[in-house]
């Protein structure tokens, strides 16, 4: 047997610790940027608004990246298979992306926590009555709390022990809630957007595409790529 080909897939597989660490560092970059802005007095004229918008925006971006992993992987598998069938070339697929997904999901939770912390501590002044009033008066805050509430069980079960305890199938079913959370986040964003502003539009479109990809893979024709056993590590 000769040495395995040292292609991209091999590199990733043999240095996966570094890939994971690099992803971890990259996901922290926005948070560090925000802290740097705070320390250098560069949050702008309305710092509270900047903190709220920035943390909310990044929670949504992290969620979108997390949800994009399966569609991107499916696409690359399809690409690899068709290239192989057509040209006899082996193109590595990107199945390893799945192994980053839980970590990215936890970063979604981190940015959502920061978003909630800024709201509770600075906007609502850590006053429970103010928060209760807000939920009653402003529907988008209620929707935001719902999205955050659903994130909690997902974050709590994003570890090997919980995966094993639940079993792969139940765990997967539970984590499909990520799509519900994404929907709620988008509704939260649109309800908060003021007249004549379309800031949530790009996020809505990307999420719409991801949802379509998900539905297509479920009900659409074409070859079905077998699901990896997510509990396998």
């Amino acid at each position, binding site marked *: 047997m000769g040495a395995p080909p040292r292609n991209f897939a091999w590199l990733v597989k043999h240095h996966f610790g570094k890939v994971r660490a690099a992803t971890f560092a990259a996901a922290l970059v926005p948070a560090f940027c925000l802290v740097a802005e705070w320390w250098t007095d560069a949050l702008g*004229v309305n710092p509270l608004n900047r903190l709220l918008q920035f943390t909310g925006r990044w929670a949504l971006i992290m969620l979108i990246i997390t949800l994009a992993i399966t569609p991107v992987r499916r696409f690359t598998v399809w690409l690899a298979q068709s290239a192989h069938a057509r040209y006899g070339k082996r193109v590595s697929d990107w199945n390893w992306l799945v192994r980053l997904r839980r970590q990215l999901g936890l970063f979604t939770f981190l940015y959502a926590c920061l978003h909630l912390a800024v709201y509770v501590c600075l*906007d609502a002044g850590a006053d429970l009555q103010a928060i209760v009033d*807000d939920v009653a008066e*402003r*529907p988008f805050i209620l929707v935001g709390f719902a999205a955050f509430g659903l994130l909690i069980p997902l974050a709590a079960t994003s570890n090997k022990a919980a995966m094993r305890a639940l079993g792969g199938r139940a765990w997967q079913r539970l984590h499909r809630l990520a799509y519900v959370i994404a929907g709620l986040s988008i509704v939260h964003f649109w309800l908060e957007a003021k*007249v004549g502003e379309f800031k949530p539009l790009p996020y809505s479109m990307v999420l719409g595409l991801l949802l379509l990809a998900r539905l297509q893979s479920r009900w659409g024709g074409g070859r079905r790529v077998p699901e990896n056993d997510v509990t396998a590590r």
Partner: protein
Amino acid sequence: MVPIPSSLITPERVWRERRLWIAAAALGPAAGLLGAPREALAATDVGPPNTLEQITRYNNYYEFSSNKEAVWKLAEGFKPTPWTLAVEGEVERPKTWDLADLLKRYPQEDRVYRLRCVEGWGMVVPWRGFPLASLLKDCAPTSRAKFVEFVSVNRPEEMFGQRMKALRWPYTEGLRIDEAMHPLTLVVTGLYGQPLPNQNGAPLRLAVPWKYGFKSIKAITRIRLVETRPETSWQRAAASEYGFYANVNPDVHHPRWSQKREVRIGEMAKRPTLPFNGYADEVASLYTGMDLRLDY
């Protein structure tokens, strides 16, 4: 939940101090002028004024953009001169003023007012201007003049935001005649003793400090006294969210912004919003007998 360490909250005080420093520096010669009318007109302490930088870099001015931090830049190409102001409708002496004549006719005074935006933030602004009442009295309103309609300028070539139809252009606003005649209602011509910057509504705007900021129309070209309540731009866009009176009122909800509290620009956390933005002693009597939760 991640608690915010207190070390990160400290900059609030630093911010406040910086603001005071700049305010003091900018005020310099004008400080004497500012003192007297402020004491005379506002029994409540409005707090230290915001810096010129804050006031001129954070502007809710949809004619240019809905992005408050972009307005100052987009407003650079706006030409506030030459300018005319027409006072017409139910008046015995309608008149079209040239801006320079108007400034000569009505002596300017400096007044430090609170400004509360409907979007949940506030500032303290040292305006310069004259009472709207002086201008209206000179035109002799007839007995049919029950309301005053204000019309802003329509120049999509100079005002980028007007190319979008988020609101009906030109922007229109309105006041009841007694609100318009109230001594607090100011025709603003300047800021920090200088002519009004474009992004703040040059060359003429209103300051109606007990109402949400959108009532204080900018770049006014026409004042029409009318018998029936005029429809305002924001009422037309979303009548359930933006009422005709739009008095600052913590008891009337808005679907997007809390009206119970506000962030004072320069501060990190929110503070409670006061009824009539702190001017209740001066203006609450205008509304006796009205349910302001219905007539919001």
